[in-house]
């Protein structure tokens, strides 16, 4: 059974791997034009493994920004993962801390979304490893390939593939919204708050997503706690 859960995880992670393909390819190319060697670029994807932060660091590196500021910026961009892994912990099968510490490395916006929207009450460790592994492999391999060959996809295809990760988020969200007003409210309120921060330029993207998510989750919880206390678990 263990193997097949791992296999199911790989399968569930394929859409992430597809979505990472153009993003990693472009990162590899940009890293090259920013002056990073293939080793330096691929090492960043291997060790840091965080799309938005990696892109941002390229901009900062090419501007000659102080390394301490680059690290600080990385932290700010990625602090939302704290919220995600805290949420994920509620849904994950109980396991040894060091094992959880390994797959924790593979938690991104995308792998979190895939794992957290699974229908099962509890998610098996091996399933999480499957999802994380295929996504991570795609990210690392296509970073290296992007550095070697450049983003030589035809422009129209590259443009079309830029939608992939968002299409995946939509594909994960919509089925959960069906007949579930709580999910609809959570998504709509968070999207509205995030839109407000985006257009008002009040917060950077990393903070904006963090605060919009937290505010919506707390607000909706308060409403539902007042209305009825007997809802089944898992929304």
């Amino acid at each position, binding site marked *: 059974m263990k193997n097949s859960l791992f296999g199911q995880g790989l399968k569930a992670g394929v859409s992430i791997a597809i979505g990472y393909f153009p993003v990693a390819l472009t990162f590899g190319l940009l890293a090259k034009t920013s002056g990073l060697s293939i080793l330096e670029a691929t090492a960043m994807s291997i060790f840091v493994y965080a799309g938005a932060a990696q892109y941002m660091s390229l901009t900062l590196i090419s501007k000659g920004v102080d390394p301490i500021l680059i690290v600080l910026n990385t932290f700010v961009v990625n602090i939302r993962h704290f919220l995600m892994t805290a949420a994920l912990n509620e849904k994950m099968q109980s396991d040894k801390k060091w094992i959880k510490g390994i797959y924790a490395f593979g938690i991104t916006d995308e792998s979190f979304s895939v794992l957290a929207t699974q229908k099962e009450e509890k998610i098996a460790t091996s399933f999480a490893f499957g999802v994380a592994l295929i996504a991570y492999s795609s990210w690392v391999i296509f970073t290296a390939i992007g550095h070697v060959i450049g983003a030589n996809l035809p422009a129209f295809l590259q443009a079309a593939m830029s939608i992939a990760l968002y*299409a995946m988020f939509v594909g994960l969200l919509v089925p959960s919204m069906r007949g579930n007003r709580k999910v609809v409210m959570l998504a709509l309120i968070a999207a509205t708050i995030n839109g407000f921060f985006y257009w008002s330029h009040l917060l950077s993207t990393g903070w904006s997503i963090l605060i919009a998510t937290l505010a919506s989750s707390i607000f909706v919880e308060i409403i539902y706690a007042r209305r009825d206390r007997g809802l089944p678990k898992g929304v």
Partner: protein
Amino acid sequence: MGAWYWWTLIGMTLVTYIPRAFPLTFLEGKELPPVVSGVLRNIPYAVLGALIFPAILYVQEGHLLFGIIGTVVAFSLAFIFENVMVVVLGTIGVLALYSFIF
């Protein structure tokens, strides 16, 4: 780059890994108050809303229509098929056709 690059990379690695690993390891086996776990159970759906909007509109800089078409197609496919792969590949397909023609 020089040695500083590798030091920066180590710093970036740590500050990215800690927020990922800390809750999963530290909270293991701990029972949280019902209010807190209620809020945490809401997070996946809230975060999806925030990740999608408004960024989906701006996937192609200076080309809002592209994002709008992508949004409409992705939501339509998701409502009809409820399958992530169909949504991802279908939306890429429609947008590829669109940017190939225009």
